[in-house]
């Protein structure tokens, strides 16, 4: 059973409609919202601030601490049980690992930068939306970063490689493989690669190419959102 036509009528290399906004949480040092299809992620960055307990501190550079959370009402089905779970802890960890290569925390030894990613509405691709939002929030917070990070899911749905799966495709009966990826947008390094299901070497290569192109489009949106907040005009009078 070949999957030739996508459930929502998109092309195989087409992402869901996206929206991005920087500066959505007033009291945070930096914040951003990223929406892809029905998935909405809000990221807030706090810090750099003092880190306790002291054994968590790193005396040579700052520590990045991410927290991924799906809100109770966010899913389409049952209420999500609040609080940390096996799944959310894992995603918090991979979010941290996805963002860290692009950050330079050497100016904050002994300190911590807290990133809180809240999913207020979910329809697949949440960890990727979270990473994309967190990257913008970190830039908004003025944390030195070498480049932005964007993330998107790719996958194999019924034998076809498609970009940015939605929940319906993830749950496709003919079997779906979901591959979450994140790339640094300038040097193109892979900072996140998770896979759930079978895929051949060739298919994976093709999927990564597709994801890389998708991430470039996301990056353009990230830059646009940042420039929207900080103004595209010059810095005013001098």
């Amino acid at each position: 059973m070949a999957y030739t036509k996508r459930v929502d009528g998109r092309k195989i290399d087409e992402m869901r409609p996206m929206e991005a906004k920087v500066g959505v949480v007033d009291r945070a040092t930096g914040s951003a919202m990223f929406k892809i299809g029905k998935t909405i992620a809000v990221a807030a960055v706090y810090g750099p601030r003092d880190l306790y307990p002291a054994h968590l501190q790193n005396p040579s550079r700052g520590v990045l601490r991410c927290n991924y959370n799906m809100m109770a009402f966010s899913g389409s089905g049952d209420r999500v049980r609040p609080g940390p779970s096996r799944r959310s802890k894992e995603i918090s960890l991979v979010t941290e690992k996805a963002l860290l290569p692009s950050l330079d925390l050497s100016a904050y030894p002994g300190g911590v930068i807290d990133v809180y990613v809240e999913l207020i509405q979910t329809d697949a691709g949440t960890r990727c939306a979270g990473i994309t939002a967190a990257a913008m929030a970190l830039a908004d917070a003025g944390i030195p970063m070498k480049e932005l990070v964007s993330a998107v899911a790719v996958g194999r749905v019924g034998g076809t490689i498609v970009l940015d799966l939605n929940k319906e495709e993830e749950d496709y009966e003919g079997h779906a493989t979901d591959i979450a990826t994140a790339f640094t947008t300038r040097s193109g390094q892979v900072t996140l690669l998770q896979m759930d299901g079978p895929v051949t070497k060739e298919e994976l290569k093709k999927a990564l190419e597709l994801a890389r192109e998708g991430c470039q489009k996301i990056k353009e949106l990230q830059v646009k959102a940042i420039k929207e907040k900080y103004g595209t005009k010059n810095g005013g009078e001098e």
Partner: protein
Amino acid sequence: MGKILVNENEIVVPGQELAEGMDYLPGDDVYREKDHLYATKIGIIKLSGRLVKLLPLTGSYMPRRGDNVIGKVVNVGLGGWRLDIGWMFEANLSVKDASSEFIERNADLSKFFNYGDWIVAEIINVTSPRYVDITVKGPGLRKLGPGRIIHVSPSKVPRIIGKQGSMITMIKDSTGCKITVGQNGMAWIHGEDPEKEIIAVKAIEKIQAESHIPGLTDRIKEFLERGQ
């Protein structure tokens, strides 16, 4: 040959390529990889000769030697005070930097500066991020009296002060308030007339919100005239 890829005053984002070739030198918050220069923060580009400078538009305060800052006393110890200056670590004010008069050993230091007091101080040393030393000896450095403290973005402080203090003087003259702005983004405002104090606060908030739109001085001037 090197090539510059951005214009003066252009707003850049992290990872944006700024220049090509070894002819250009990276300034603060700019890094070089192979023969390319890239930005690490959201900011405005200033070019001076071969140097590519980036003025960050965002970010928390980073202590620098010589900065005048406003801080709050959070701890009174035996040898000095600890102040919150908006940096992730507390700044240290030792007894010898606190007063020109003689302070006896074992004196009760809370008589000089007590918990919750706000102080204008100068950073004399940043040994490491964790050790920031400040002094209250110097012109204009003192304990602050009644008034209010407002927080502004540290990157907007130069705008609030203006060229040779033109902007802040305008607000002071127009509202009759006493204002002190610290480099760390904390400002103290005190006016005899509470109404005028509010106008001064609003003016500073307006500067913060609109500093990237040209014609700021005129708009603030108009705002101050309209306000009373």
